[in-house]
């Protein structure tokens, strides 16, 4: 049970951190507009939102993995 709680705390902390980070990021970039062009984007085409999506996917997948593992441990 202790391991389940610990895994849950790590997962919750991670999701909260991601949420706060993205909120702070979006508040800033919406307040101060930056005119993007081919010359300002990474490699000329990579928008910040691509990384945001990837970030959400990675944190989400890691959290799901952790949750599945935690519940599997409860079942054993």
């Amino acid at each position, binding site marked *: 049970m202790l*391991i389940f709680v*610990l*895994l849950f705390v*790590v*997962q919750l*902390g*991670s999701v909260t*951190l*991601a949420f706060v*980070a993205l909120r*702070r*990021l979006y508040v*800033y*970039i919406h*307040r*101060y*507009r*930056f*005119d993007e062009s081919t*010359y*300002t984007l*990474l*490699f000329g085409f990579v928008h*910040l939102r691509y*990384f945001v999506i*990837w*970030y959400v996917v*990675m*944190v989400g*997948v*890691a959290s799901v*993995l*952790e949750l*599945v*593992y935690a519940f*599997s*441990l409860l079942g*054993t």
Partner: protein
Amino acid sequence: MTDALKHFKGQLDGEVVICTFRKHWLSILPTLVSMPGLFIVLFLLFWNLPLLVEQGHWMSTLMIFALAALHTLIHRQFLTVFHYYLNTVILTDQRVVLIDKSVFFKDSKTSIDLVNVQDIQKDQVGFLQNFLNFGSLSFMLSGSSSPMVIDLVPRPEYQYKKIHEVKGSTPKWRDERDSNPRPLP
């Protein structure tokens, strides 16, 4: 000027943004290279989950640390990428502003007034810098012995020309202000 019309924090009234740029992608390359590695580790953990569950208590203890480390790495890598995107250099009609901002830990700003710039030096030395078209810009300031250097500048020739153009067309109100200083109280 309201915040809704500003391009950066601290933009003055009537200050016009001429161009903006970020550091060269070489500054973020190590982070980008290591990102697929994280994805592979995540995939392998998922793939071997049934096997990991069957192991003893020691494995679950180990897994807590492994997963916590994985989460930390994911956040660290992506926050570095966000830092790269927020870290900008802005050339306005009055100054060059270096914004060093990250999501949580940094919010620094350095401003170089174009009136104080005596000379600008562009350096692009070595095969890599010329092949990938990046370099550094040094600003010699009046009243300062050491130059102000911006490194990893992409397309330095373009930025160099643009700064010279802006510096050559200093607004008239600045000349008037400098020739008629406000009397001291």
